[in-house]
């Protein structure tokens, strides 16, 4: 009896399935439903992943910002996480004072801005030279640009140090003043190197400009030439204007990296008052010495406040220009 019943029901189910298969409307709905669910699950997966990665990136930044508002009691209270109970601006007050913030920031920005202008001018010129002119040995010289990107500056730091501690050009300075110049502890070495296209990551910028200029149509220049424009006029008034996306990208890169750079600043002993990202590393020690704060955990809070202060201009520039920036990298730059 029971056996029969199951048999019947199995048949019934089979019949039902057959009927369902015949019903195209139902099959279509089912397929659509499956693909919807698939899409939803994939979307959810992507969402979770992106949120997670963003957390990994933003987490420490948020941690630094929140702990820069911690008061002493918050710091010792194990119940406090992220949101301080008694927020204080004392950290900022001292950090502003010990960094000599406005003055240092002003000269630091001036330093990186002026280097940025030189960097953009020289690198775009060299990139244009490589992209548009044919001269003997061009390929070998361009290979040298790649070598410049690949060889880290650390390899040549000693000779650079020596060169600038006894700076001389073919013995001219020695003949004039009696001794070679010591350019260390001034920003001059960085300026000289940037002026001759060997500054911080100049190779990369030359490469980017070269790729971009090669992508521009040749007809623009030919038209300018026919109209009687000279090479320099064409370069400054036509090519450089057309290369604006690339110029913006390189400008931001060079500005931000120069601002953050401590390697050259340390190597050439550039003064702390010009390079704020170098000054920040001494803030803990100076506060501890003068204010007699000995707890390293508390000192760290001052460091956090200082770091928030030096991050502000970079983040502002980035937020203002980030769209042009990322699109610039995508369109103009590194990708050939």
């Amino acid at each position, binding site marked *: 009896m029971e056996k029969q019943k199951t048999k019947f029901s199995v048949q019934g189910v089979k019949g039902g399935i057959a009927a369902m298969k015949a019903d195209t409307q139902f099959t279509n709905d089912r397929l659509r439903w499956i693909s919807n669910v698939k899409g939803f699950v994939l979307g959810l997966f992507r969402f979770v992943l992106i949120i997670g990665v963003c957390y990994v990136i933003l987490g420490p930044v948020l941690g630094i910002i929140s702990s820069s508002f911690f008061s002493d009691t918050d710091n010792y209270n194990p119940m406090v996480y992220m949101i301080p109970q008694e927020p204080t601006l004392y950290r900022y007050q001292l950090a502003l004072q010990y960094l000599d913030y406005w003055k240092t920031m002003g000269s630091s920005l001036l330093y990186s801005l002026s280097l940025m202008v030189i960097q953009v001018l020289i690198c775009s010129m060299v990139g244009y030279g490589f992209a*548009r*002119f044919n001269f003997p040995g061009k390929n070998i010289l361009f290979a040298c640009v790649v070598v410049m990107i690949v060889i*880290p500056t650390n390899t040549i730091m000693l000779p650079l140090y020596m060169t600038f501690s006894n700076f001389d050009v073919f013995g001219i300075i020695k003949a004039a003043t009696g001794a070679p110049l010591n350019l260390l502890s001034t920003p001059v070495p960085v300026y000289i190197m940037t002026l001759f*296209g060997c500054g911080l990551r100049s190779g990369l910028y030359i490469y980017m400009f070269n790729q971009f200029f090669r992508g521009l149509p040749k007809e623009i220049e030919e038209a300018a030439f026919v109209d009687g424009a000279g090479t320099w006029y064409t370069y400054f008034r036509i090519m450089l204007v057309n290369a604006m996306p690339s110029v913006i990208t390189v400008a931001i890169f060079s500005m931000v990296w120069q601002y953050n750079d401590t390697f050259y600043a340390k190597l050439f002993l550039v003064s702390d008052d010009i390079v704020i*990202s170098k000054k920040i590393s001494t803030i803990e020690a100076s506060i501890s010495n003068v204010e007699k704060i000995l707890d390293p955990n508390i000192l760290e809070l001052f460091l*956090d406040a200082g770091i928030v202060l030096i991050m502000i201009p970079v983040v502002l520039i980035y937020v203002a220009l980030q769209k042009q920036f990322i699109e610039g990298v995508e369109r103009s730059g590194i990708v050939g």
Partner: protein
Amino acid sequence: MAEEIRAKKKKKRSLSQRRAMKGFIFILPWLIGFIWFYVRSIIMTVQFSFSELSVNPGGGYTLEFVGLDKFIYAFRAHASYKQVLTTSIGNMLIDVPLIIFFSLFMAMLLNRKFKGRTLVRAIFFLPVILNSDAISAAMDLARSMMSGGISNSAAELAETASGSGVGLEYYIQMFTSLGLPDVIIEYVSGAVGRISDIINASGVQIIIFIAALQSIPGSMYEVAKIEGATAYETFWKVTFPMVMPHIITNVVYTVVDSFTESEVVELAYTTAFQYFDYGLSSVFSLVSTLVTCLILVIVCRLIQKRTFYYN
């Protein structure tokens, strides 16, 4: 008289020669700098590494040729150089493939259109903007302070994770009992432990890959779809070959970047400016640069063999 000669000279040059001259003038500043700072410095580094350098009190320095002594000292007698070099290179070899695959994966995720894409891209690029020494040191501190599961090493990760109830060790044991080789498990758990380093190091690479993905013509995907290729097949037959050339760019960038931030560089710096042993420092940087270049050449050869160039 002189002007006449100049005029004659000018006449003789053809248009292409004049163009060549102009091009040369455009690259001249860089060429001077390259010879002055790079070629000369590399020669000097080699020189230093074969000699004992002493700084004269009046300025300048004298070199005394000592042959291979410094090299022998670096490899036979120095306390930590061999170890630092091998760990740096080992870390580099482990990190580079991880960074490349992670950034390719992320680029593919970010290449799709979704709400808030610009914001997410901006966040992904943030580590590139904030890559100052001081900031990253403070970031590391903040990270360990906030350790909600993400910490520096795999061992720490296992501890914190088991503390929060996930029990990474349990998973490791499970995979071991599944018969997966220890090497792979160690590699993966190490990668999980270093995930924040990897994410922070792959900002530029992600952008390069996004650009590469956008340069793939859409018609290729249409063809693949019409021919009935699945998403998996489309990836391996269309996307991957098309981004292959950019993998080389990214490998070069990543290797150079990780070398610049490695401990070898720090060791060379302290040897030179704290212990004033300039020759030894030159040996350190020279050897590690040579090793890096060798790795770059080998890796690029390997990839280039399998690379397909569209144009």
